[in-house]
Structure formats: C-alpha cells, structure tokens
C-alpha cells in the first residue's frame, strides 16, 4: 500500500532563523528527522514546537497542510 505523504511547512524562529522549509513526510518520526537535519543539535532540547501557532506536547497528530513553528527559549523586554 502506498503511504500518504503529508506536506508541512516548517518555520525556524529567533536565533535558529532560516528560510521556511516545505517538506513531505509520511510520519511524525520522519518530520522529527527532517527537523534534526536542519537545526543544530545543541538547540533540540531547548526548542518548543507549535502546530498552527499552538504549542503542542507531541507531534503525533500532524496533518497535511500543518505549519510547524520551532520556538527557541524566549526573552522579551
């Protein structure tokens, strides 16, 4: 059976900023792999993730068309 590909947009914010990345993945595991290839290792444990601008506690329910934002630690003011 052919697996369904999910097209998602990844945004890299603040100090990890780079061009948005549009990718096709078949699972949240593959999505995490793609992110790891594009973010320095030292950041991974510090980054929070938002899906469609809401912070999530896991990536299990990724859907086609989702926008994934990677949010390093914050400090305004």
């Amino acid at each position, binding site marked *: 059976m052919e697996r369904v590909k999910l097209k998602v947009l990844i945004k890299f914010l603040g100090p990890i900023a780079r061009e948005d990345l549009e990718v096709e993945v078949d699972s949240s595991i593959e999505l995490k792999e793609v992110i790891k290839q594009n973010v320095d290792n030292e950041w991974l444990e510090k*980054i929070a*993730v938002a899906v469609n601008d809401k912070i999530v506690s896991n990536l299990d329910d990724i859907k086609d068309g989702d926008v994934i934002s990677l949010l390093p630690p914050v400090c*305004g003011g």
Partner: protein
Amino acid sequence: MVEIYNGGLPVEEIFNKWYKLKWGGMLLTFVGIVRDDGGINGLSFDIYEPMLNEWFKKWEKRVLMAHSVGNVYVGETSFMCAVYSKHREFKLIEDFVEDFKANAPIWKYDLIDDKRIFADDRAKKLPNAGILV
C-alpha cells in the same frame, strides 16, 4: 494587538495615546530602557507576531503593550506596557510582566559593535520544550 515598532519606541507618543483612552481611574505604565551594561551598545529583537497576538488576547482588555523589533540602542526604550483599572492594582502589571517574560514569543540579542549575540543566559524555555529530542 501588541503595538510593534521598528527600533526604539516613541515613548511620549505611545504614552499620550494610551493616556487618552481613559479606560479607568488608574493608569500604571512600565517603560523598559536599554541599559549601558556589559559592553553592549544595544539590544535587538525578533518577534513571531501571530503567536504574540494570540498570547496577548487574554490581557488586552486591561493591558496595553508596545515592543520593538530590530535594533534598540542604549538609552532607548524597547518595551512599554500599561495597566488600566478602577483603583490601584500593582499586582496586575507584575503578573502581566511575569507571563510576558515566560511566554511571549520574542527573542533578544545583545548588540556588541552592532553584531547580534543571542541572549542565551536570559532566555526561558517555552512550555513543552524538548519534544524533538
């Protein structure tokens, strides 16, 4: 909506605008000025506006906020907020600033000779940070 400005905030203009709203009998204003501190010539900021405005919704009936994006030099102002209430309510502005520091999607950099260096020592992880590991 948070009021976002490129560079230092026009403090008097913003204050005058907020003062004219007359939302209540007390207007308590906080003005954050960039200090001459640790050899920096200023600070610089990135903001993710969609999530900043979403976060601010729970405050916007009682709190006003303005923030800079880009470079803000020593002596200039990067952050203003104000609370309106009927009577004095100092705790509200403290609660707001605590939530702001912990959750507003804003990233700060020191400027040393105009070069940006991420303010890692002052940054706080957002909720659920680390799920990528």
